[in-house]
């Protein structure tokens, strides 16, 4: 049963349309990711859910009640802002205690719960200080602590990791997951980073231009993107999308690019419906393209590509390839990649079972 459902939310700020009909349903206890590029409406969606913004149209249902026009303070919802929005003039203890005191919790209870929360978030040693003196990671934990301390029914996190440095971000992802598992709380978080969405979200809603494009588990979004846009938003490095045309027999359609031709992909059946010569995108992940080893039989369509840049990332390397005028990326483990250097011609193949085909005009996946 959805604890939160949002239907047809629309909101404009002057001429700018922020939300253009957002629909969402979040289950109780779910860790839900709202993924979208900047200005896609993530923050506005969260702000509308917690009541800071009033939608122009649409409805917000929370625990079975229509709260679209309810006051902010009445809702049992907490939000962690991207900027953390800590109370700069209050000590960290008082920051954490604030929501409790506002709701008339007794002094002992405040002390106990703040202590507990601080303990959980490893903030105990900082409690006397002002938030301004805390490190980025601590500030973020304070913000979360302040949201958690009153055990809200729903926790909203607005880009919770954006203001952390790269290293901390990696560690914090796992922390969030553990926290969610321990508390079993319903959490909706917004992020522009697909890695965060994939790794933390149990389900992901992909938002763009004020609309939800696809909702699903990380696996679904990765393996079955609804369209080319979703495919390119999810997965890093970005999916290779090559201009292609439908060719082959009616019953055995193939996808042809200037330098290769593929058939028998998971899209084969669906492609039958498309007329010969239809414009398509042929999509495959950089991990699904492999060099053909000596004497190895390619496990899919093959071609020769020229390396024009290598980007070593430690144990993996991204190779920028060029074939038939198209640029594509290939990811290899470091030990394999050292064999190739810029300018080399490499015979490669694509794992056809993991490829996607999209109609070029609408971008819709053909599956």
């Amino acid at each position, binding site marked *: 049963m959805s604890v939160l459902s949002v239907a047809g939310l629309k909101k404009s700020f002057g001429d700018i349309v922020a939300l253009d009909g957002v629909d969402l349903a979040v289950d109780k206890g779910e860790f839900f990711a709202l993924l979208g590029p900047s200005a896609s409406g993530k923050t506005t969606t969260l*702000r509308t859910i*917690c*009541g*800071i913004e009033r939608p122009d149209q649409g409805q917000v249902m929370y625990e079975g009640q229509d709260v679209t026009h309810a006051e*902010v*303070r009445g*809702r049992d*919802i*907490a*939000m962690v*802002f*991207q*900027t953390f*929005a*800590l*109370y*700069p*003039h*209050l000590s960290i203890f008082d920051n954490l205690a*604030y*929501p409790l005191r*506002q*709701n008339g919790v007794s002094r002992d209870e405040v002390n106990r719960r703040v202590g507990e929360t601080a303990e959980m978030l490893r903030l105990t040693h900082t409690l006397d200080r002002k938030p301004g003196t805390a490190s980025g990671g601590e500030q973020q934990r304070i913000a979360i602590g*302040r949201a958690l301390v*009153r055990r809200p029914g729903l926790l909203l996190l607005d880009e919770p990791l954006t203001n952390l440095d790269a290293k901390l971000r990696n560690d914090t992802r796992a922390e969030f997951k553990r926290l969610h598992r321990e508390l079993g709380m319903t959490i909706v978080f917004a992020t522009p980073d697909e890695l965060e969405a994939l790794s933390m979200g149990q389900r992901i809603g992909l938002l763009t231009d004020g609309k939800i494009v696809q909702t699903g588990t990380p696996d679904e979004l990765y393996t079955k993107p609804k369209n080319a846009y979703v495919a390119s938003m999810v997965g890093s490095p970005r999916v290779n999308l090559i201009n292609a045309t439908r060719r082959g027999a009616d019953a055995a359609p193939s996808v042809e690019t200037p330098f290769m031709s593929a058939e028998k992909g998971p899209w084969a059946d669906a492609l039958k419906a498309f007329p010969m010569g239809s414009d398509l995108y042929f999509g495959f992940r950089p991990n699904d393209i492999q060099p053909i080893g000596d004497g190895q039989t390619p496990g899919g369509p093959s071609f020769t590509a020229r390396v024009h840049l290598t980007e070593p990332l430690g144990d993996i390397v991204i190779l920028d390839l060029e074939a038939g005028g198209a640029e594509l990326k290939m990811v290899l483990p470091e030990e394999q990649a050292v064999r190739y250097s810029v300018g080399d011609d490499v015979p490669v193949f694509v794992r056809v079972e993991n490829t996607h085909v999209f109609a070029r005009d609408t971008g819709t996946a053909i599956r």
Partner: protein
Amino acid sequence: MSVLMSLFSRKERRLREAGWGWTLFAGIISLIYFFPVLWIIMTAFKTRADALATPPVFFFTPTLDNFVAVFYRVAQTGSGEAIGTGMGGFFFNSIFVASAGVFLALIIGTLASYGFSRYPLKGNDTYLFVVLTTRMLPPIIVIIPIFLMFRMAGLSGSYIGVILLYAAFNLPFSIWMMKSFFDELSPDVEDSARMDGSSEFGVFFKMCIPQLKAGLAATAVFAVILTWNEFLFALLLTSTDTRTVPVAMARTIGGEIGVEWGLLAAIITLFLIPVFGVTYLLQNHLLRGVTFGTIKK
């Protein structure tokens, strides 16, 4: 020794950081600039003969007579008794009227600027323009009507009248300045407090105000500087009991004797102390204040 060394050593290649050498340079220039004030302060400790000596004297035996004369004079009836000049009361009036006026302007102005910043109305610019225009008025235009209004309301000569007038006088400035500070505050904090269960009053008083202490201080400094020496309204709207120092000061520039140099200088010196102190304490906020928020980090 190290001080001397750094004076002559090649300067650190940090921009805008200069050593004692620059202190010396800036000190000399500033002292030249400050000289007229210094002269006034020196005059406060001079006898009349020293004050008007030709050539001017820079070294003299200081006297405190002028400071005594600020507060006491000899009775006119020739009985020789010392009579209070009431100057202590005028100092109190100045402090009371200026602080109350500024305080009131800050309260009303801060509320209004919060409104302007957080709940923009249609035609916001027009309201703000009107607000600013009232600050730019040549005061002479409104003196007579205000005088009349005050008489009708029974406010002339009372503290309330002057305080209200000073509040109104400082209001446009407070609104403009505080608005720029509010604009710099993140509304997230306020929304956060709302979500944490704060009422609107709580948001304003417990969240915004504590964060704006610095801004309030800067606005207060400017308002105090502008109010402290106000003369015209103070002259016309106060009576003997509520008169402020700038008005009372005028009695030293033409009675039986032209200018009572030492006495005037002593009053100026004493009167400078509070506003100087306030400015010094809040100096760091001043820079922020004058920019009217036009400089964003």
